[in-house]
């Protein structure tokens, strides 16, 4: 009995941790495009997204009745396997965040569960045809549908109307962006917020702490909503940078087109019975609006890396899940070992991320998210452990960026300290190759006139003059 209580408590805590990573991973889906075009200030954006996610979590009444939607045989799933799946999903979410890769949190969770069930219950526990129809096919279709719609909308708007990039027109689009981004954030809260509630509720029912067929208890709704809200507020700035700045140089009309398309695709898929991953929809929209505007830059290299990340998500999470399950299923000591490994892994990834931090201060400064594995290359950027030191570091980055931008060379490397750090060649297990820093021309864009605006000599709005 005590060991049941122990595993239930561990699963609940892990599920809330997963919910937190889900929040900061998906913060970018709603807000990256608005942050990039200065429709929202970075911290305002994550605050609004966080509040709407919490509101959405409380609004949603239809809590997931199954853990996986038929991908694994739920009758065979034990709380320990759920725990192993959650651990795998958290570690994969943190790894992709470190590299600034937008990837689906649901796919990570499904992958982790698949791996855990394969070890715990054998191949018969996994419904591979459902894996194809509910994960693989939607994963291919989501970016295609969103990219096509967003690209077409952008193409037509830039073709039919002139001066959409200039004041006062662009101001209207910037205002409209605040609405479309908020709708995505709310929709996210109603869908992803309830996933964790479903997991916790099902574990409570399996362990006999709650009657079958009853809905989530109030404390479950509250803690799950809070976890995803806190996660969203913490921002996931590395992914935010890739989605807002890295893939495409966005202008407000494009940001609006991307957000509208994403909202339409998310709502259509939620109400017409063909679920699409929010992350893949939003990334597809961003690439679509980049391809739809003539002269816009789409950094296809980054897009390709992101797609590799998507392809890796399921097998990598499954591998993590299988390893975690193999250890955890040996007993309470195994569960403890996995828990310690999770904390150590999360701590290590966080420590590596602090060497080249991306924060609300410097999120728009560069399109690149760099990862530095060796201490020697970070002499200009000491590894910061405390929050205060982290802020100080990012200020240094901004200052050095300003200095670099004064050189009157248009093709200068991205003017931030973060990008200037030479990345080492080391790779983490199960991760993609470190981001290669290449000199990129940062196209003219619309920035908010704050202290971190880079005074570029070649600043002009360009486009349809």
């Amino acid at each position: 009995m005590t060991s049941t209580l122990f595993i239930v408590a561990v699963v609940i805590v892990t599920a809330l941790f997963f919910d937190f990573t889900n929040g900061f991973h998906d913060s970018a889906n709603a807000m990256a495009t608005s942050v990039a075009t200065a429709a929202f200030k970075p911290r305002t954006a994550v605050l609004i997204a966080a509040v709407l996610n919490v509101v959405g979590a409380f609004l949603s009444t239809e809590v997931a009745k199954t853990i996986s939607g038929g991908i694994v045989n739920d009758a065979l799933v034990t709380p320990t396997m759920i725990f192993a799946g959650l651990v795998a999903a958290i570690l994969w979410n943190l790894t992709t965040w470190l590299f600034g890769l937008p990837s689906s949190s649901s796919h990570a969770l499904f992958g982790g569960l698949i791996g855990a069930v394969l070890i715990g219950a054998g191949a018969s526990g996994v419904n591979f045809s459902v894996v194809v129809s509910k994960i693989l096919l939607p994963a291919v279709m989501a970016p295609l549908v969103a990219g096509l719609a967003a690209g077409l909308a952008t193409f037509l708007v830039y073709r039919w109307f002139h001066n959409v990039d200039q004041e006062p027109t662009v101001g209207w689009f910037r205002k409209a962006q605040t609405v479309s981004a908020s709708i995505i954030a709310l929709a996210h809260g109603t869908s992803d917020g309830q996933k964790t509630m479903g997991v916790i509720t099902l574990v409570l029912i399996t362990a006999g702490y709650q009657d079958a067929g009853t809905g989530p208890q109030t404390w479950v709704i509250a803690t799950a909503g809070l976890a995803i809200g806190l996660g969203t507020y913490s921002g996931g700035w590395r992914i935010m940078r890739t989605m807002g700045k890295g893939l495409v140089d966005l202008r407000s009309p494009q940001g609006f087109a991307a957000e509208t398309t994403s909202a339409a695709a998310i709502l259509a898929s939620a109400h017409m019975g063909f679920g699409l991953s929010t992350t893949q929809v939003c990334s597809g929209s961003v690439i679509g609006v980049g391809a739809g505007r003539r002269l816009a830059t789409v950094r296809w290299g980054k897009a390709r890396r992101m797609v590799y990340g998507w392809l890796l998500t399921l097998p990598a999470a499954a591998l993590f899940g299988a390893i975690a399950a193999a250890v955890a299923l040996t007993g309470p000591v195994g569960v403890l070992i996995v828990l310690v490994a999770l904390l150590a892994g999360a701590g290590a990834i966080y420590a590596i991320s602090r060497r080249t931090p991306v924060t609300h201060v410097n999120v728009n400064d560069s399109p690149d998210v760099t990862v530095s594995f060796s201490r020697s290359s970070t002499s200009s950027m000491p590894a910061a452990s405390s929050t205060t030191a982290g802020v100080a570091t990012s200020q240094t980055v901004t200052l050095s960026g300003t200095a670099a931008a004064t050189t009157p060379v248009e093709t200068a490397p991205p003017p931030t300290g973060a990008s200037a750090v030479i990345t080492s060649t080391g790779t983490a297990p199960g991760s993609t190759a470190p981001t290669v820093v290449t000199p990129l021309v940062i196209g003219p864009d619309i920035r908010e006139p704050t202290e971190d605006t880079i005074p570029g000599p070649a600043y002009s709005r360009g486009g349809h003059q």
Partner: protein
Amino acid sequence: MTINWAALALVAVATVVAAVSIVGLFSLGVAAVTAHQRSRGGAAASSLTLVAGYACISAAGLIAVYGLYLIIPQFH
């Protein structure tokens, strides 16, 4: 393996139609309103432009409200 191709096609078409029409409608409205602002004090026809422009923007706003209606389960 059952793949709901009809649902997939419906989602795809709905997304494309919604994205193009909302973004198009809003852009049309903004173009009309800003055109009026540029030709301020001009012909009487420009006030019709202004009304039409705000109508388009309001229509886009109504679609956003419909989106909220779809999201919030308490409404249906």
